[in-house]
């Protein structure tokens, strides 16, 4: 068995195979529900209604999608340059930490205050990724290892601070930071709906990333470096500088997920702020084939599966771990489908 490249994949191939991946995911989900002793169709139905069946459910899904759009964009930007940033979780917490510290006693209030805090958070995330990328370009240290391990370092630093200097004196002993001041909390997108401006910022960020990737010189350089580093270097593309810029953007985007969660949804920093948004960002980016528009769609899908599975679990008694299994299989099927769009299998 071997793979043969397909020169010009047709429309059927490009749309049919991802659709087949979706069908395979649904079939896998049904089998999982069946193995848990539940009616497959009813279980899947409960997941769908749990995700988008009511105004409350839909808003919950949008809220859950917000940090995933940011981390998904962060990963998509980096992976385009073949910079394997597995540390969006660490960058998210760096952004959250800066937001919690600056937001508790803001010097500037209102929208300028929010903007300043957001910028500071993004800068913190960018700096967290700067170290690994400099180690990579200067010394050839594998960034997969350094970014992955920094996730644990940052989490432990946050834990130390929340148990120490940042612990909210009014928090009844819980390890959480002092609340972000009302004057710099992100307002609601639409009055009366429980959805904050973080979601709006995420959509704007997706638009800007699209502009960067498709129209800007930097996007062109990033793709050149990612697709063929030797040819890029030969042609005079400053490979090291491009990787550093990529890292700053990627780390900044991931940090905005932390900013949006702390200044928007939660209002405070706790250790369970992120149930792995940074790691899930990798899944989102891969499902989206690294396209910023796709990231928004994939983040909504992934958030819907999580929110819907929680609701289904409460109603049908099937463990909500089914969400993780569904996402994992969706990712595998989708990656396989993407590969099969460009290659056909030849049996001999």
């Amino acid at each position, binding site marked *: 068995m071997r793979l043969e490249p397909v020169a010009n994949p047709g429309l059927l191939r490009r749309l049919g195979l991802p659709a087949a991946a979706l069908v395979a995911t649904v079939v896998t989900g049904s089998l999982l529900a069946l193995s848990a002793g539940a009616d497959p169709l009813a279980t899947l139905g409960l997941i769908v209604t749990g995700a988008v069946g009511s105004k409350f459910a839909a808003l919950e899904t949008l809220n859950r999608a917000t940090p995933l759009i940011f981390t998904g964009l962060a990963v998509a930007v980096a992976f385009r340059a073949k910079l394997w940033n597995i540390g969006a979780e660490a960058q998210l917490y760096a952004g959250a930490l800066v937001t919690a510290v600056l937001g508790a006693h803001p010097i500037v209030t209102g929208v300028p205050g929010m903007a300043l805090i957001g910028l500071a958070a993004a800068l913190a995330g960018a700096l967290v990724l700067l170290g690994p990328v400099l180690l990579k370009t200067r010394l050839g240290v594998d960034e997969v290892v350094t970014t992955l391990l920094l996730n644990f370092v940052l989490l432990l630093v946050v834990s130390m601070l929340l148990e120490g200097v940042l612990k909210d004196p009014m928090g009844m002993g819980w390890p959480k930071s002092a609340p972000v001041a009302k004057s710099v909390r992100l307002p609601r997108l639409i009055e009366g709906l429980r959805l904050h401006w973080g979601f709006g910022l995420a959509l704007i960020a997706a638009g800007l990333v699209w502009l960067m990737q498709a129209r*800007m*010189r930097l996007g*062109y350089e990033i793709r*050149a470096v990612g*697709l063929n580093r*030797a040819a890029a*270097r*030969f*042609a*005079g593309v400053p490979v090291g500088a491009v990787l550093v810029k990529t890292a700053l953007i990627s780390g900044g985007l991931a940090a905005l997920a932390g900013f949006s969660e702390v200044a928007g949804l939660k209002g405070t920093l706790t250790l369970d702020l992120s149930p792995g948004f940074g790691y899930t960002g990798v899944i989102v980016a891969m499902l989206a084939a690294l396209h910023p528009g796709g990231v928004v769609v994939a983040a909504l899908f992934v958030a819907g599966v999580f929110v819907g599975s929680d609701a289904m679990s409460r109603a049908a008694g099937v463990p909500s771990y089914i969400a993780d299994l569904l996402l994992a299989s969706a990712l595998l099927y989708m990656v396989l489908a993407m590969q099969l769009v460009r290659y056909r299998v030849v049996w001999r």
Partner: protein
Amino acid sequence: MTRTGTAPDIVLRLDGITKRFGALTANDAVSLSLARGEVVALLGENGAGKTTLMNILFGHYTADAGTVEVMGQVLPPGTPRAAIAAGVGMVHQHFTLADNLSVLDNILLGTRPLWSFRLNRAAARARVRALAQDFGLKVAPEARTGALSVGERQRVEILKALYREAQVLILDEPTAVLTPQESEALFATLRRATARGLSVIFISHKLHEVMAAADRVVVLRHGKVVGEVATADTSPPALAAMMVGAEVALPRVAAGVPGPVLLRLDDVTTPDEGARPGLKQVSLNLRAGQITGLAGVSGNGQAALADLLSGLIVPTSGRLILSDAAPAEWSPRAALAAGIGRIPEDRHKTGTIADFTLTENAILETYPQLTRAGLLDHRTARRFTEELIADYDVRCPGPEARIRLLSGGNMQKLILGRVLEARPKIILANQPVRGLDIGAVAYVHSRLIAARDAGAAVLLISEDLDEIMGLSDVVQVISEGRLSPGFARGTMGAAELGQWMAGAGFDHAA
């Protein structure tokens, strides 16, 4: 398996092997036989088809036509297992040993089911010791492989093949990684092995080694066997001429009118890179209106010279001087700014980005000039590309097609256009027509001559002596990183250049 009437002393016979990769014919009806106890050298340039042929023999590739026979039995195509079982052992250029295992474990790995592994260890160790003794392959069976030198690892690879009772041993560029002393020891081993009836195929493009180690030489060029001689009846210059081919003369080109020196290398040395030699105190003048041809067997420092002029490396000593001033900083972008146009050796790996469109590839060196407020001017880029496609006759689906869809010739025309449209003062043409069809070859050559006539200084690097002698106003030969003096057009024949390529002449010239 079919029995055929092969004479008993022929252990291996390749018959009419043909292998195509797309438009490229890597092996064209190659036939070859190997007698018991014989060392045959397979000689040829990079890309001549040596490695493809051996991969077919060993079952890594399936031939489009032709058969492989070992001990009179036709091997089923495409299965290395069958080749091993039939007694073929291959030592790859890059070793396939596990660093964390002992020498003995590496040799045993894959030879027997795991559950009987421990039981036979003592017997196996004794056998490895005996083999090592017999063939003069000194290595300790219990040593950790990671701690061994390169020469010792190669001995382990050979022992591995012998342990599997190989009758035919294939060595792919075995000396590329060895010191001269280690090479000498390897040749001694080969002599002992052949005295015991082992047959060896030895792949190389180094002439003196072939002369030292082989009984017979088979020369491949462009996938075809172009010569087969006993080493006793030939000489390094004759082999060099056969390798690069000097029978067919290209139509002669009118001589250029030399102008001032545009680029000068002054006693330049660059570091060796693995088996690739760097430049050794090279001095070179590139003149306006002149094509300087660089002849030589590949792997003799051409890559270092090309990398230097491309801005990828800097000299460790000596100077690179452009129009009487040494550049302050040297990088690909500095080389472009200095007016050096670069046609790279490998158009797939360094010349283009396969998944980029023609437009994106066309602006790869000039995109900074096409940027306004951080945004790329796609419209201008596209118009430029459309003009390139028309002016350079690039056959393609359009400027927005991915360049991987193009044939080598059309890809090269786009690169040529990209380079020439920048109006370079100096042109580095590294293997500009390798793998192209005749039409594309003529086109690329005519464009290079036109650029010369317009006043550019051209450095043509090629392993094809015909091309060098046909186009160049001045020919220089590179050998082991050293550069010969310049020979004016028509003053040197293929035989004399072959002498220089084989390394003669440098000793008293240096």
